[in-house]
Structures are given as structure tokens and as C-alpha cells.
């Protein structure tokens, strides 16, 4: 097989994986779908890394005078991105729930411009996972927000849930429930 064909295969495999992840996280989870989130990039298999886009729309505005986005969609989209990064880092599909999430709003979002949520799972233990994320409007070096989030991983409880999740494909979203 030529180098070009191998690269094509790898690209096709990544595109198919991205499509599955987009279907499971962005489209199947009602609130992520409502926000209009889409998965646009993922790390290698087993690597907890994801980039979601949050398209700007008038319904998401929090300041009717300036037209600036409400913080809510930013928090929610970053919760979704961090949760997805943790889920992608798991070996088995298990239910996760956000324990806590901190958002620092570094600068205001420009009105009318789409956003990118970049998240990475930095550490995963038996019961808890840690994620970091940033949000920007196209330039990853100029983040609007930085995020740190921790998640509960339900490993023992997961056997029953994991079966259900496999069947329902994508009920694995973060529900923000406590332990």
C-alpha cells in the first residue's frame, strides 16, 4: 500500500470516528443538540481530547444591549467538551457526572462569532477524572475562557448503565449529578 493510500485510510478512519463521536455527544444529547454543538476534531483513539464548535445564534445572547453571549452557553459547552474528553479517555463506556467546574472569563466574546471549545482529560483515576479546557473564537492562542473540571466516574455502578448506554448509544453525557 502506498504512503498516500495509508494516509487516506487514516484520514477516512478518523473522519468515521469523528462522525460517531459527533452523533453520540453533540447530536444525541438533547441539550448539546439544542446548543448546536458539533464535534470538529478528536485526538487519537483512547486519547481524551476533543474540539467542539458552538455556533453563535441570537437565542444565546445574554446582554441585549451589547449583543454579547450569555455565560450559560459557555459554561454548558465547556462542561460538555470536558465531559466528552473524559468519556473518550475511558476504556469502557461508563457513566460520568460533573463534580465541579470552574470557568474564568478572560475576555468578552465578540458578538456574532462562532466559538470553539477545546478540552483534554489530563488524568483519570478509578473514581475521578480531571479535565482542562479553553474556549476561543478561532484563535486557540487567544482564549476567551479557561476551564477546570472534575468528574465522578461510576465504574462499579457502570455495568448495568454501560449496557444501557451501549444500546442507547450516547446516553453517556455528563448529567451534572453528584455522587
Amino acid at each position, binding site marked *: 500500500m502506498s504512503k498516500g493510500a495509508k494516509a487516506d485510510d487514516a484520514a477516512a478512519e478518523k473522519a468515521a470516528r469523528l462522525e460517531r463521536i459527533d452523533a453520540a455527544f453533540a447530536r444525541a444529547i*438533547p*441539550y448539546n443538540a439544542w446548543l448546536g454543538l458539533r464535534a470538529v476534531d478528536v485526538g487519537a483513539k483512547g486519547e481524551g481530547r476533543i474540539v467542539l464548535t458552538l455556533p453563535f445564534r441570537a437565542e444565546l445572547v*445574554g446582554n441585549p444591549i451589547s449583543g454579547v453571549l450569555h455565560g450559560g452557553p459557555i*459554561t454548558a459547552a465547556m*462542561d460538555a467538551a470536558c465531559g466528552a474528553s473524559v468519556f473518550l479517555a475511558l476504556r469502557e463506556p461508563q457513566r460520568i457526572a460533573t*463534580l*465541579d467546574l470552574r470557568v474564568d472569563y478572560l475576555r468578552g466574546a465578540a458578538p456574532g462569532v462562532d466559538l470553539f471549545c477545546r478540552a483534554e482529560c489530563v488524568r483519570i483515576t478509578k473514581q475521578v477524572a480531571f479535565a482542562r479546557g479553553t474556549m476561543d473564537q478561532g484563535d486557540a492562542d487567544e482564549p476567551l475562557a479557561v476551564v477546570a473540571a472534575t468528574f465522578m466516574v461510576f465504574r462499579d455502578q457502570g455495568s448495568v448503565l454501560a449496557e444501557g448506554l451501549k444500546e442507547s448509544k450516547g446516553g453517556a453525557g455528563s448529567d*451534572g449529578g453528584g455522587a
Partner: protein
Amino acid sequence: MSDFLAVLAEAKRQSDPSGIAPAVPYLHAMGIETRLEGDVLVCTMRFSEPLIGNFAIRALHGGTLGALLESAAATTLLWRELLAAEVVDERLAMPRIVSLTVDYLRTGRAVDTHARAFITSAGRRVARIRAEAWQDDPERPVAAAQASFLVG
């Protein structure tokens, strides 16, 4: 005067913040309402299917609780500024959020959720707020948040 400032002026005149949420596009879209209980501003997020984050266990998306808590914090501050303002003009607008930390305490069920916020410190430039969200029992919050805002 913008439409929104007119809404704020009317809310101040009536001593009733219930007109504020419908005038903020995101709050309106989320089904979030604002009202006074005594002198405490309460935000209620009416349950609707798009708020679900985990359909296997029918739990609210954690982000919706974060959004509700931030809304309660911001509108509580706005209401306080509005009550104190002699004139309603552009300087009021919306308090600018600096940081928000959300603690998720219980699974948010598929029902209406309420939130209230308490100003823990208010300086000339920064206000710190604690917010709590609950469903049936205010003593059993589903989520809580600590937020800092730039004011003035």
C-alpha cells in the same frame, strides 16, 4: 433608550423583576423566569426536554444548572443595582462575570429548578455572589456556585 433599558425602568417602577428574564434572549430561550419572593430574587427554569443531558437516567444537563446559577447571580446583582440607581441608563446593563465555580451536589431531575443568589461581598469594583439551585426542597440544593462579577 433601548428596549431593554425600558424594561429595566418599568421593572424598577413596578418593583417587580418578572419582566427582565423575557427580555434577555438566552433566559427566554431557556425557559428561565425571574420573580421576587419577599426581597429575594428567584429564578425558575421550567423543565423542557431540550434541557436533558443524560436521557438514560433523565437527568438535566449539568450545563443548564450552571447557566441557571449564573443567571440567578447576574440578575440578583442587576436587580440590586437597579434598585439603587437614580436613573436607568446604559451604565446599568449587565454585570460582567469574571469567574464562576459550580459544585454539582445531586442529580438534577427532569422537573422545574429554582435558584437564588446572595451577595457575599460587594465592593466598588467587584461583587462576590453565592448561588444555590434546588428542585423541591431549598434545603437540598442540586447545585451551588460561587461567582465574581465586575460592577460599576
